[in-house]
């Protein structure tokens, strides 16, 4: 389970560039009495070819941060950039195009169209863009995630883990600038989950892919290069090269803090 040596050509030197950046990013839902501040002036950078995990308790704003960064949700104030592109300045059509061309997605569930085969699902973003997929690259991705024999199957004929691997393959296939994963292992047993996380980490290490993953699972976060902790819409902590235990410790700490508050 390792990617072939050839690195992707257009990727700049690792760890120096920033793939996505939030500056004083705020997101407010509702108005007046019912106003809820989901993100409160968050500033964060996601380094290129890095695997970043966003963690935090329910309602901490971690999913909102991801949605805003991925152009799925609008921004109330501040700035969110993918590469050099300021998302706040884009209309729906441009955002859609940006997601299609520059971003890969892995959701917790329901990543695949039940009517399409695994291969068709993998190449769907390119089909939408009307681009011819890079066959060599697809072969590599498919082989890496271990789906070679199952490309003709429909999602219903695949196990949950296999479905999620198809989702990973789809995210990788279009060679996006950044992949957002929202609890990608939330519905999987630990073995399948470990596999999927392994692929994600491998894609970062061997293919210089950038991955941002929202999770509440310390074990999943342990696969990342860096963990960003959110609470009440603010970034409260960061960990580099974390281990699952370290993540767990931090979370216990927040929990304790939350209770004393």
């Amino acid at each position, binding site marked *: 389970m390792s990617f072939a040596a050839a690195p992707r050509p257009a990727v700049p030197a690792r760890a120096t560039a920033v793939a996505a950046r939030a500056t004083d990013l705020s997101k407010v839902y509702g108005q007046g009495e019912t106003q809820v501040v989901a993100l409160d002036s968050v500033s964060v950078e996601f380094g290129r070819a890095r695997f970043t995990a966003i963690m935090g308790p329910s309602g901490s704003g971690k999913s909102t941060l991801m*949605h805003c960064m*991925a152009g*799925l*949700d609008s921004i109330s104030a501040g700035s969110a950039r993918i590469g050099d592109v300021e998302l706040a300045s884009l209309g*729906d*059509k441009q955002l*859609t*195009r940006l*997601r*299609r*061309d520059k*971003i*890969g*997605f892995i*959701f917790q*569930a*329901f*990543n695949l*169209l*039940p*009517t*399409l085969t695994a291969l068709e699902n993998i190449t*769907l*973003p390119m*089909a*939408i*863009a*009307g681009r011819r997929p890079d066959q060599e690259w697809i072969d590599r991705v498919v082989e890496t995630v271990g789906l070679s024999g199952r490309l003709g199957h429909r999602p*219903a004929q695949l196990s*949950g883990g296999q479905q999620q691997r198809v989702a990973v393959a*789809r995210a990788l296939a279009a060679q996006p600038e950044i992949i957002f994963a929202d609890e990608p292992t939330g*519905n999987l047993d630990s073995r399948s989950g470990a596999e999927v996380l392994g692929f994600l980490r491998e894609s970062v290490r061997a293919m210089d892919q950038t991955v941002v993953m929202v999770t509440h699972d310390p074990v999943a976060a342990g696969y990342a290069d860096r963990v960003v902790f959110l609470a009440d819409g603010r970034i409260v902590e960061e960990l580099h090269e974390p281990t699952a235990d370290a993540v767990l410790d931090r979370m216990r700490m927040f929990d304790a803090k939350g209770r004393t508050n």
Partner: protein
Amino acid sequence: MLRTALRNVLAHKARLLMTALAVLLGVAFVAGTLIFSDSVGEAVKNASAKNLKDVAVSVKATQDPDAGPGRAKDGKRSTALDDRLADRIRALPGVQSVRADVTGTATLAGRDGQPIGNGWQNLAANYQPGKDGKDGRYPLVRGRGPASGGEIALAENTAKAAGVTLGDTVRFATDGPVLTKKLVGIVATDDPAVTAGGSLALFDTATAQRLYLHPGQFDELVVAAAPGTDQQKLTSEVSQLLPAARAQATSGRQLAAEQARMIAEQNSALSKTLLTFAGIALFVGVFIIANTFTMLISQRSREIALLRAVGAARRQVVRSVLAEAGLLGLISSLVGFALGTGIAVGLRAVLDANGAGFPDGPVVISPSTVLASLAVGVLVTVLAAWLPSRKAARIAPVEALSTVEAPPAPRSLVVRNTIGAVLTAAGVAVMFWVSTLTSGKDLPIAMAGSTLTLIGVIVLAPLLSRPLVSLAGVVTTRLFGVSGKLARENALRNPRRTAATGSALMIGLTLITGMTVVGHSAQVAMDKMAGSGLTADYKVTTSTFVGLDPKLSAKVAQVPGVTAAAPIRGAGFTVDGGPGHGTGSGFGYVRGTNLDRIGEVTRLTFTQGSLAAVKAGGIAVSQTEAKERGWHAGDTLNVEFYDKKKARLKVAAVYADNEVLGKSFASTALVDPHLDRFRDDELLVKTAHGGSPALAKNIREALGDSPLLKIQDRDALRKETAGQIDTIVNMVYGLLGMAVIIAVVGVVNTLAMSVFERTREIGMLRAIGLARSGIKQMVRLESVVISLFGAVLGMGVGVFLAWAGGSLVGSSFPAYALVLPWGRLGLFLLIALVVGVLAALWPARRAARLNMLEAIGAQ
């Protein structure tokens, strides 16, 4: 569980809206039909009861067998009802008054010179002023009643159609020369024969008698009795005064009963026809209801599983679903009933505006109509929801606990396909058999076969949807890329759903296509009959059966611009097929014509013999006739004409079938001796330059400009025959329109529910970069694919049924052959396409507007 049902109906208001609309429209159709026919029936009954209110006894003359067919030597009818008889009846105790009616026909020319209405609807009667100088039966609108031989009164619509006003001279004809009288009065009448496109002329009694009978004679004596008189007794007393076998007395009560029965019969025929179409509309609705409930239940399966888990029995689940259906049916039926009442009122107004001439009357809503409409709506909805409810009962309680979003495994279609194949095969077999039948009496077999085929194909539709939708999908994928591909996959995803939606559209299109193809083929056949062989530019006939004076053909021939005028008059005969004289015995009809001219007004091709041989005194027979009877040129036929004279006719020639000349023709010299009425049935006129309105006017004038004259060019002839078919086909389009509208509602419904079901998919597609326009395109194309599937299937079945059933129609049109109206069929396909696009408007918009984040997170 009833509360659950109620909550469900309320909770899914929007989703049930389309279903409710389908039920509503069907019920509106039923209610509208029932209310309309009740109201019109009641109004007609009232009107006729009003007319018969004062009739105690009616005395009508019966035909006198000794006086020829009711005619004296002067060509006028003679009856046994005269003034003396009227006076004797007046003298009977209990008789209040006696109305002595003379009836006949009088034809007026409309503004275009052509006769108004049909010959038998151009009524004429005598105006009988009472003591006040007015005839209560014909209330005056303007002017006064006719009082002398030079005066005439007309019904309001008649005067309008003829373009005459009080004081004008009215030209008319009974069955002879043109007569003129001064218009002195305009009367009102509610006689349906007059209000529905006919005409009415009134004369004073003496004039009417001169025109139609003999002085002092009447057609009918209408006796009014003093209050308290026994009708039965009076009738028998009147009967005793009548000359035996020449007149008959009927009591007013009996007349009223007969009339009521006739009205009821006509009415029930009309409402049966309308109800058939309402039934079709409801049947189409069944598919939509069933589809909706199937979808609702699959969406709600976890909820139902939870109910089961907490202890609801299967039966309770079924009942809950059925109660929901019943509730939906009831609400929709109530609204549908209200709409139906509006339709009934509107329909009557529209038909009246188009000259249907229904008498006035209130809107009749009988309790049985209310009950029937509501019952039909509720029953259809509950029945349609029955299968889905069984499906709901099969949901296992454990499904409530499952967290994995696993689509239910598609149920096998093997059983369904087997049943469908058997039904279709049986239907097709019957239709192949029907295609060999030629009698109109076999229509029920054809209908049974058609129904069987249609139902078979409906059952098979899921199987058929795969190849057809795939085929359409290839096109959409090529044209629209990924949206087209996704649309195809979505349409293929649930064959049952696609099939049910398509079937709803298919039913309407099968019937419409079948009607169109048969109608078009019949039209082409009629065109052929009207136009084939006819090279004349004008055909002159009379609106009654009086025919034309034979001297006129020579006159017309002299009109400048006319190159030939050939009269046609015919005589019937029986032929005795003795040995050596051919085998075909039976009835025959030979047309006499001007043999020198006939070649100029029709295309004649002889296969045996020649025109010269016919001129030498033989008869020519058509190819078909010769073949059927086994006649050849040179045969001699022993015939007996209807005037009982025997003759030997020589078959001189055989000609290619020709509608102008029919089965056989000869010179007028051969036919004339056997005619009791020496008149031309028609006159065919050929002109030098193809005719013009001015020339037609000259011909009309040469013929004496009688209002009875019908001068038609080929276009008018074609319209006269083919126009009727057009009217019928258009009416059927209108009636089937409701079924198609319901089917469109069904497409909207299916799409809307599919969009709802696929919320998360759509969210995901949007997230990975499919633009809103792409989502719209996807839904729209799915809609188009489903619509086209239904249309193609329906048109295919329709053409097949039309082909097979055509032989039955062919029996009454010799020239009938299946002709596919490609233009119309293409139009239907186009309409299906447009329907698809329109049906997708709302669902596509909804899909495109889904909030992406909510969609992705939706459960």
